[in-house]
Structures are given as C-alpha cells and as structure tokens.
C-alpha cells in the first residue's frame, strides 16, 4: 500500500463521510428536536437524485437544475410535514415508524412508475468533469474534490447557524425543553416545520451531488438511511457536531476498512481465508463501532447539551 493510495482512500472516506453528514444532519435534528422517528428521511435522498435527473433532462443545465431541485426538495419536505408528519408528533414511535415506512414504499413505487425500474445516471457537470493527475498512475476526479468542498461549506454553515443565530438557539432550546420554549411564546410548530424542511432539503442535496457519482434507482435511499441512523447514534442524537464527527469517522472507517481489512488479515491468515473473512468483517466495522459506543458512551460521542 503506497502513501498516495492511502491518501486517496482518506479523500474517499472524507467525501463519503460528508455525504453521510448531509443526510444525518437533518435526521439528527428531526429526531433530536422533535423526538420524531422519520424513516422516510432516506427517501428524500432518492427524491433529490431523481429531481436532478428530471430537471437536467428538462433544462439541459446542471446548475439551473441544481437550484430547481433544492427548491423542490424543500417544498416536498414541507408538504410531507404539513400533510403527514404534523399529525404524528404526538403519536407513539410505532405509529411514526409505520407511517413513514409507508411513505418510503409509496415514493419508491412512484419513482418506479414515473421513471421506470432501470438504473439511471446523469453526467457530471462540464465544469467539474475530468480528473487531477496525482501520481503517474493515480488520478482523482475533480467532481469528488468539489463535493468535499461543498460538504465542508454546508457543515460550517450549519454549525454557525445552530450556534450563533436566533433560529439556531431556538432549535437547541427546543431540542431539550420544547414545552418551555413553547411557553415562552415561540411558535414551536413553525420551528419544527423549518427544521423539517431544511432537513429534507439537505438530504435532497446529498442525493443531488451523489447522482453523478452513484447511479439513480428506486430504493437507493433505503440502505443509506440505516447508515445515517448509525451515524446519529455514534454522534449523539440531536447533536450537529456529533453528527459531523461521526459521519467523517464512519466514512473513513468504512472506506479504509474495506481496503485494508483484507490486507491486514492476509498477514494473519492465508490469502484465500483473508479473502473470505476480510470483506465480511469490513462491512461489519461500523456496526461494531456503534455497538461499542452504545456500551461505553450510550449518549454518543458529542451528545447534545441537556439530553437526559
């Protein structure tokens, strides 16, 4: 394993981590602030990917399509909140799981009806296509570097919003003592709606930037939702900082683990044995980490303040 290869793996891990963060950020706020289990959050990621596909096909321009997709993702989030989720806040977690699971099935099928079951793809935007020559054999796509940059910008923006703005303060307060915030005359319903809409938009945004790298298909959000839940449990429910640290951690461990585990086991066992166990063990790593966190730090790495 050369140093450049290791470096590339780290970049990939970072990029995957930031993508996870965009999804987990909304999930952790909705879960932490409203105590609401939204399984349909992963499907917003898929919606984002299909939106950019549809709008690129319509307008022929990635950047206009990006803007339209974000607005539509936000609107879809708000509509879902208004029509469905609003009725579920006071209900039990089981009801929430059932209803949001229904939305997953509905939207997955809708995507299939509208776009067909086949896997779709879009081209990377002209400006960001191409790759950078790192060493003689190694090249790294510009688009991936750009997604790292964008992910970091969004992360910083979110952190500043949550820490230093009035809305952010209310969100933090609402996550610990919603009754008190409400008693102080804050429109908690509207606050929830904002959190929900922004969360949906972030997940949609993750879908948009993932679309040119990964393929677009019905059900693409289902697996990533599970990883996003792993991230928010490791990071601490309701904590943006925790979600960030955990997302990067999960991204790096997953990416590095997949490449290094087989090589590492190759030192201990023979090659075919390592080839058998390595991939299986590598996919388990993040769940092992989550189990360890649940045992030793049940509130997560960076728990939100005041969470009992």
């Amino acid at each position, binding site marked *: 394993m050369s140093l450049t290869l290791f470096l590339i793996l780290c970049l990939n891990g970072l990029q995957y981590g930031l993508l996870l963060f965009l999804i987990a950020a909304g999930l952790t706020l909705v879960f932490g602030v409203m105590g609401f289990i939204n399984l349909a959050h992963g499907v917003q990621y898929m919606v984002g990917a299909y939106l950019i596909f549809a709008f690129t096909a319509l307008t022929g321009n990635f950047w206009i399509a990006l803007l339209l997709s974000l607005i539509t993702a936000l609107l879809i989030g708000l509509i879902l909140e208004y029509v469905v989720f609003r009725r579920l806040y006071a209900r039990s977690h089981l009801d929430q799981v059932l209803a949001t699971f229904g939305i997953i099935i509905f939207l997955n099928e809708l995507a299939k009806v509208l776009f067909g*079951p086949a*896997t779709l793809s879009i081209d990377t935007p002209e400006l960001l296509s191409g*790759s950078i020559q790192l060493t003689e054999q190694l*090249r790294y*796509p510009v688009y991936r570097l750009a997604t790292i940059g964008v992910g970091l910008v969004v992360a910083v923006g979110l952190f500043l919003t949550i820490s230093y703005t009035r809305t952010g303060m209310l969100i933090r307060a609402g996550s610990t003592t919603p009754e008190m915030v409400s008693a102080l005359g804050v429109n908690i319903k509207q606050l929830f709606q904002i959190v929900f809409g922004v969360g949906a938009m972030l997940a949609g945004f993750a879908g948009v930037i993932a679309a040119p790298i990964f393929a*677009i298909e019905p059900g693409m959000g289902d697996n990533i939702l599970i990883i996003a839940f792993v991230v928010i449990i490791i990071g601490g429910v309701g904590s943006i900082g925790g979600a960030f640290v955990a997302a990067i951690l999960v991204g790096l461990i997953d990416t590095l683990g997949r490449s290094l585990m087989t090589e590492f086991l190759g030192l201990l066992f023979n090659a075919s044995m390592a080839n058998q166990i390595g991939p299986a063990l590598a996919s388990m790593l993040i769940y092992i980490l989550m189990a360890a966190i649940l045992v030793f730090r049940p509130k997560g790495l960076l728990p939100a303040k005041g969470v009992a």
Partner: protein
Amino acid sequence: MKPTFKTATGAAALSLLMGTTALADDLKIGMVVTLSGPPAALGQQIVDGFQLALDEKGGKLGGQTVELIVEDDELKPDVALLKATSLVDREEVDFVVGTVFSNMLQAIFKPIVESETFLISPNAGPSTFAGKNCNPYFFVTSYQNNQNAEVSGMVANEEGFENVFVMAPNYQAGRDNVEGFNQTFKGAVTDEVFTPLGHQDFSAELARMSTSGADAVFTFMPGGMGVRLVGQFDGAGLKDSMKFMSVFTTDETTLPGQKDAAVGFLAAGNWAPDMDNDANNAFVSAFEAKYGYIPGGYAMQAYDTANLIDSAVAATGGSVDDKDAVRAALKAADFSSVRGDFSFNNNHYPVQDFHALTVVKRDDGKFHTSFVRTVVEDYADSFAGECGM
C-alpha cells in the same frame, strides 16, 4: 394444499364476473420473476419477451390458448415460495417459467418439480441443479451460471491479457463468476476483490486497480452496481490505461444508464441484439417496435422459452397430460432459437455457442452489445457429467 371451498367459490365467482369460462384444454402458464426493487428491469424484460412471442402467435402456444399468470417474487425467497406453491396447487398450471435470480430458483424448485409440473428457467442457471441434482421436470433456456465467466477467461486469453484485476460482489454468484474466470484464464490474477452486494462507491477499488499494474479488469456487477462502477471507472480516467471486461455488467438493462462511458467494453455472452440471423432480426425489430427499448439477453431467453413451449405442445398434439411425451418434446428443442444453434444437454441445460461481445453506440444514439466473434461452439457446462439423466 387442496383448493378450499372458499377459493373454489371465489374463483367461480371471478370467472362469472369476467364473463370468461376457462376451457379444459387451455394451457396455463405461471411465471415467477422479480418485478420490484432495483432489479425489476430484468424481470420486466422476461415478461415482455415472453409476451411478445405469445402475441405473435395470437395468444396461443402449440395451438392452445394460453392463460399467463405473472407473479412477482419481490426478490424474497419466502414470497417466491408462496407464489410458486399457489401457482402449482391452486392454479394448477402446466408450466412454471422462472426465475431471474438463482436464489429465487432454489426457493421454488422443490415444490414445483415435486408436483410434477415443468419448471423452465429463462435466466437463472445455478450449478446446484446441473449436476447430480438435475431433475426430469427442470429445464434451463439460458446458460449455466459459470459459463459466461469461463468464456470471459477464454476471451482474455485471446486478447492477450497477462495480468487481470478481478472484482465481484461478495455473494454466491459473485464467487462463482470469479471461479469460472480463473478456471479458463491462463495469465496472472493480480488481485481478487470482493465488495459488498449493492456497493455504492468503488473509488477505493478503483485506486487499487490503477496501482495494480493489470492490463485489464474482469468483473461481474449486475444492475445498479454496474452502472456505478462503469461511471466511476470512466470518471477516474482508467479507460485509457486498462481494458474493461465483464459479464452481466454492461448489458441492455444497464447501458441506458452507462451510455458513452461503456462504449468499447468487452463482454461474453450467448447472444447479442445484432447477431445476424432471420429469427433474431425479426425478434429485435418486433420487440423494439412494441416496447420501445432494445431487448437484452433476458428478453431473448424468455422469447426462446415461449417458442420452446410452443414447439413442445405442438409436438404432443396440444395435450400436456402425458408428462413423458412433453418432456421428450421439450428436450428435442425443435424451435428456431434467435441465438442460432440450440440444443439441450442430458441435464436439460443448453448446449450453445458463446461469443465475445463489445458495447457499441447505434446511429440513433441508443447503446447495445454487439457481436464480435464466436469464442467457443456448442459449449456444454462442466456439471452435466454428474447428472444421471
């Protein structure tokens, strides 16, 4: 399970409602394929291919009016089993056509063949039922799963590749394909990499690929995995430095997503849409006119399956009561396959030619696999010897 009173009256009420009375000599065919989730496109091709053959014959096979019952196995073994037993027990179908995936076939195999109903697989061809567990009621019209990878190894030899990087998802079919490739490939395998099924980000694997010094990569990444891999392979700029060779990765179901990134990639298979024979030209143009997309191997094999049933039922004079006669007529494979020569081995798996294929862009901007040359003729699978039939 015997039909209960409830289902019997229910069925009677339904047939009254629909105003059709099923004739005693009608042919009933049940189909179990995957029609939900990401791999739904594969199942849809099978339904379309079969339906096309049926429509061309005015809804009849072997002169008998066909009632086709399509069931979705949802890619869940328990669902597949439930649907299959209901087809056999309640509907009492004469033939079951299925499945797309080998693990679904394993789930439905036993109840169907034990009820002495003919099971014809239009795609899945696991080694499990090719050897000593071969069955008189089971036929495969596609291939034996290992064969495409074995032929890929031969293609690699012919292309003069010396070092090949091998990658597949970490499940049975993935490991079978790697084994099949290694069996015939004479050069060196630089790396064997197994990824999780449904893998999203291939960048780590691509980085390893580019530093491996291999002149080609061989992979098996069906469906969405293939679309992602090809796009990322292209994005990483690897297309210039190494050849891409695969099975079930760049086919007519994934090419609409891969587009230009896949042009020139090599594949191995038993057929390509542009293979030049009369039956095939007629099939491809009729299929495109009806469904608006280029058929893949899945549709082709389903089309052949319908024609196979047609020939068998015609040979027995329209009766399917004498199972031995039907079996002999199926085994004779007396139909013109769109892929050219086609016959059944003693284990009821096909003996057919395999070809080297490459991805091309057609003048109208659509993509398909294209015939390059025939690599091996009348190729039989390596398990037939263990079959006692």
